[in-house]
């Protein structure tokens, strides 16, 4: 177990800055999940921690030791590749043992560790198979097993579950969580899946364009996004943002007006963005805003209506028994104190106060 500390990390590929000054601390035993749009540099950051790429600027430390000039194999870090990267010519057993053989562990110790990991990941039956005779989920587990047997200080995962079907994903998610509790190791995990991020992470780090937007516990990010990017990136459907002008406690936009209970900090200009999570908006007989229904998503118990309002597009929830038809004009009501406010350039000014 060790902490990972990134300070002022920059990385440029062929003149394109990919990582633009990232500072991030991953505590001992923490499960940090990195999310962000495709191409924002998540994989690159993992590779920098692993030592497969060298930083242009900044320092990478693992367990308090600066490892900028340390070879990957001497960093005591294991990485689970997005592609699994199993050795095709070796059996599962040989795949698992490969790293231990290279480190010249005694044969008895190797055998014990392989047996342990295989039992943990339910691979015992498969030890003598080659990767090509395994299903996607089984390969995934072998890839994980190869990391586990090494008992490294830090685990790095690059979208390990992205190629699995939903059921297997839910199962593996559970296993990962269990694994983290059991091993207590530091884990850095990249994913595109919000549910994975929210359920696995002790802390989530949101990236965009090679810049860390915000890092914190999942609910903290969900309820108190530091900026417009984080607000719309986390949560599904995405948070609604409507342009408005502020006037004391009152926020008025085209065709709507809301009031916030607690005051807004001063300073920034009068133009702001008002944000509502779709889950906090409800299609109702009367409300603070009206719009024409463009599309409806029924999810069974409830559903979402996508509206075109004077102020812009809006997504709101509707409950069981409510009929919403495309083309209809409906009103939308907001839950009490549901308003997020951002400056025009996207910095958060206020969040609802009554959050858990």
């Amino acid at each position, binding site marked *: 177990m060790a902490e990972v500390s990134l300070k002022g990390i920059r990385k440029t590929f062929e003149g394109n800055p990919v990582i633009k000054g990232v500072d991030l601390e991953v505590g001992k035993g923490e499960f940090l999940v990195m999310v962000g749009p495709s191409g924002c540099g998540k994989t690159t950051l993992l590779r920098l921690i692993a030592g497969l790429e060298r930083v242009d600027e900044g320092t990478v430390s693992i367990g308090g030791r600066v490892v900028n000039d340390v070879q990957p*194999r001497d960093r005591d870090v294991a990485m689970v*590749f997005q592609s*699994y990267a199993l050795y095709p*010519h070796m059996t599962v057993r040989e795949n698992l043992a*490969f790293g231990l053989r290279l480190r010249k562990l005694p044969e008895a110790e190797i055998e014990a560790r392989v047996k342990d990991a295989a039992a943990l990941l339910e691979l015992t039956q498969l030890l003598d198979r*080659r*990767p*090509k005779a395994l299903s996607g989920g089984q*390969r995934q587990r072998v890839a994980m097993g190869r990391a586990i047997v090494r008992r490294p200080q830090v685990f790095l995962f690059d979208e390990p579950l992205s190629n699995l079907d939903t059921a297997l994903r839910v199962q593996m998610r559970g296993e990962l969580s269990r694994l983290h509790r059991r091993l207590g190791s530091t884990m850095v995990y990249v994913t595109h899946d919000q549910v994975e991020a929210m359920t696995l992470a002790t802390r989530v780090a949101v990236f965009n364009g090679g810049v860390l937007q915000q890092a914190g516990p999942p609910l903290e990010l969900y309820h108190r996004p530091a900026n417009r990017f984080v607000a719309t990136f986390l949560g599904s459907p995405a948070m609604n943002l409507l342009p408005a002008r502020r006037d004391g406690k009152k926020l008025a936009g085209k065709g709507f007006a809301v009031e916030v209970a607690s005051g807004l900090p001063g300073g920034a200009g009068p133009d702001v963005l008002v944000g509502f999570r779709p889950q906090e908006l409800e299609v109702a007989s009367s409300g603070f805003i009206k719009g024409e229904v463009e599309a409806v998503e029924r999810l069974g118990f409830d559903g979402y209506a996508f509206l075109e309002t004077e102020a812009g597009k809006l997504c709101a929830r509707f409950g069981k028994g409510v009929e919403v038809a495309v083309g209809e004009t409906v009103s939308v009501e907001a839950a009490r104190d549901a308003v997020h406010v951002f400056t025009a350039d996207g910095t958060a000014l206020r969040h609802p106060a009554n959050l858990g």
Partner: protein
Amino acid sequence: MALALVCAATLYPVLWVVKLALSPSESLSLSANPFPQEVTFRHFAAVLGASDSAGRWLFGRNLLASLTVSAATTIIGLALAVTAAYALSRFRFPGREAGLQTLLISQMFPATLMLIPIYAILQRLHLLNSLGGLALVYSTTSLPFCVWMLKGYFDTIPRDLEEAAVMDGAAPWQAFVLIVLPLAKPALAVTALFSFMTAWNEFILAATLLNDASLFTLPVALQRLVGEYRVEWGKFAAGAILVSVPVMGLFFALQKHLVGGLTAGGVKG
């Protein structure tokens, strides 16, 4: 049907050679029938049993010379090609493109064009009339093909595998030896076979660079059977068959490695 035709067309001359080798007469009969009327192993016995003026077993010496040169060519050529191809596949360095292109261009000249410079170089190195010199020449001439062939194959092996090995604690050379080489087996087999066959069948360079009959490789020895006044076709055909047997054997031995698909299952597709 087309397949049968192609098979017949390729097999016809081969049958002819077999007929020549097995027929008792020494002359070329011009009948279209590819099957021998009478069968004798006289020619095979003559080729296998011939000795030189000093009473040494000629076929044995020639066979040994051919084997030595071909094996040496394969080993030297493969060792050089594997390392060069890996570097060209995995690293970006100045001159990489130029190097690859030069290798390709060098393939466009017929080997005979190089005969004179090669002769001159070997003379300087005092490697004329030596099997070592010949092996050296063969390995350099087959190198471009081998490098391209292997590079193409290395390019298809995902880099993730080596990176995974490095994370697992392998030094770069260990990742190469323990991961890449075993996966490249089919390409290594093809390249080895190619090198071996080039050396085994080559005639012009061997005939020019060797002048000691005890060092002759089989193709050169074979050509000497086609005498100045009288052509011993029967012996020639028997010799030709004897020369092809080892190559065929090698081919069958390597056949099971020639099938691809070794990397299947390592990374998700």
